[in-house]
């Protein structure tokens, strides 16, 4: 029951804060949409100029890639930014005083944020499809599990950066690097053997096959799905291990309340 009250409290806080920072939430979505428009219209102009149909499949890939990238960025940056902000506002130590344990407060926060992020990303997805005129297959039963598996790696990165933020406080420069690294992971074709082990890469490829090629989850090669799951879980485990190590260091050095 205690955990249920903790979950309710976290959900209510997140929704309240989202409403209070509505401008920030909306502007984040608009800015990602504008980046997408630049990429899409740029590619379209290039295709028209070269009178080629070589980029035909790429438009769908771009939509799927942006959709996954948005969720990944919102997920990882939401977690690490939150830890930085909580330390700055002085509420981080109060969260650590929860009898449920900080890990549960953090997990519930991630769950609630993930649902909110999915809702925002779906709005963004429809905006992309409307802009491009390419309507993709939205098989929720197939996409939802693949999406979770795919963003696990992003949350792993979020935990790792969050942990580093506990110790080093100012790690904003890292954010940009990871953001671009994620783009790299999505752009590199996942059929290249080593690319399968990059975060997001394999999952993004599988989501593409569902959304652009109309495949169902059970029609996908089981080995590919399991690889995506194992890679996501591995990155999450590494992220959690980094977070745990940093948390211990922060407690030993008395850094939790610093900012």
């Amino acid at each position, binding site marked *: *029951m*205690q*955990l249920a*009250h*903790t979950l*309710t*409290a*976290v959900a*209510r*806080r997140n929704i*309240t*804060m989202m409403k*209070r*920072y509505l401008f920030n939430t909306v502007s984040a979505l608009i800015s990602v949409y504008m980046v997408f428009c630049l990429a899409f219209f740029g590619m379209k102009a290039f295709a028209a100029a070269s009178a080629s149909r070589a980029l035909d499949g790429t438009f769908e890939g771009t939509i799927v890639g942006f959709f996954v990238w948005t969720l990944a960025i919102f997920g990882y940056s939401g977690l690490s930014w939150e830890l930085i902000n909580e330390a700055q*506002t*002085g*509420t981080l*130590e*109060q*969260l*650590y*005083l*929860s*009898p*449920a*344990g*900080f890990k549960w*407060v953090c997990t519930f926060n991630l769950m609630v944020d993930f649902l909110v992020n999915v809702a925002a990303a779906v709005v963004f997805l429809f905006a992309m499809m409307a802009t491009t005129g390419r309507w993709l297959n939205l098989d929720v039963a197939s996409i939802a599990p693949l999406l979770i598996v795919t963003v696990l790696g992003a949350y792993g990165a979020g935990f790792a950066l969050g942990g580093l933020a506990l110790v080093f406080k100012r790690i904003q420069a890292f954010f940009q690097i990871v953001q671009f690294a994620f783009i790299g992971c999505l752009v590199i074709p996942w059929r290249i053997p080593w690319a399968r082990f990059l975060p997001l890469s394999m999952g993004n490829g599988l989501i593409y096959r569902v959304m652009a090629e109309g495949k169902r989850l059970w029609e996908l090669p089981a080995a590919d799905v399991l690889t995506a799951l194992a890679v996501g879980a591995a990155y999450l485990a590494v992220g959690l291990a980094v977070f745990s190590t940093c948390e*211990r260091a922060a*407690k*030993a*050095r*008395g850094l*939790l*309340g610093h900012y």
Partner: protein
Amino acid sequence: MEHHDGIALEVDQLKKVFRDRGTREVRAVDGISFRVAPGEVVGLLGPNGAGKTTTIKCILGLIRPTSGRVAILGRDVASHYPGILSQVSAVLEGSRNLYWRMSVWENIEFFTGIHGLPRRQHRRYFEHLVERFGLADKRDVEVRKLSQGMKQKTAVVCALAKRTPLVFLDEPTLGLDVETSYELRETLKDLAEEENRTVVLSSHNMDVVQDVCKRVIIMTAGRVVADDSIEHLMGLFKTRAYRLVLRGPAPEGLEAGLAAHFPGLEVQSTPHMTQVRLRLPEPNDIYMLMDLLRDAGATIEEISQEEPDLEKIFLEIVRKERENQCNSRIP
């Protein structure tokens, strides 16, 4: 309020050493021990850097101690963490414990929620606290729009609303004006008595500690240098601090003669009168004082016991401790 029969808080040989880049050692808390009984309101006093906040954070598990043991309501904190936190609440650094973009009420509901309290069940108590702290008409106002005093009060309410038997208040009146500080400490004092909670209050403000607490633990340089009831400390200093008024200017050699025996001597002399303030190291030293005055040919016009306050006691204890430390360093 539910209480363990024995001891509410037990700190045993607690030590925290910070290492500066692996070389220089800073002993923030240097093997301190103390116990707090259920329902007791204890003040933790000390100059800046004395180790008060580090001690509180070590007790709460926010800082990992180098060694030592902490038990809350008889249960070892390290082996019952974080579940043991259900018995504890804390205000750390005042208003920095709140979400400024959320209202007073939303903050209360959130922090009690993550403490595992169902909000509907405790709604009346939250309302009672909001009323007691004069926040009723501000309960739906975002914290950022409140004055510093109101923010501090909200932080205290959020801690008390968790209904824990043990409450830590680290500098709850920091940055408050005299009136708000007085108001806050009066409410704290009343609530501590009414609800019989165990409170550990750390503050630089002596008036707050003197007014709210029954017992004080004085820390300096990471060590406990005094641990006594405020009443006893006052009595101890009261019986030994004297003010004398002598007729005419100070007789020759009197000041030097007194200084050799009495610490903290102050002599102010005018052509018409001399005022002497001193403290007797031992109660029987009053006879020696009288002998010295008679031998110097002084005429006593007035003699009175000084009324000590906690600030004077604190300064005296800290001064003494520093002197001892200096002496111990001289080979």
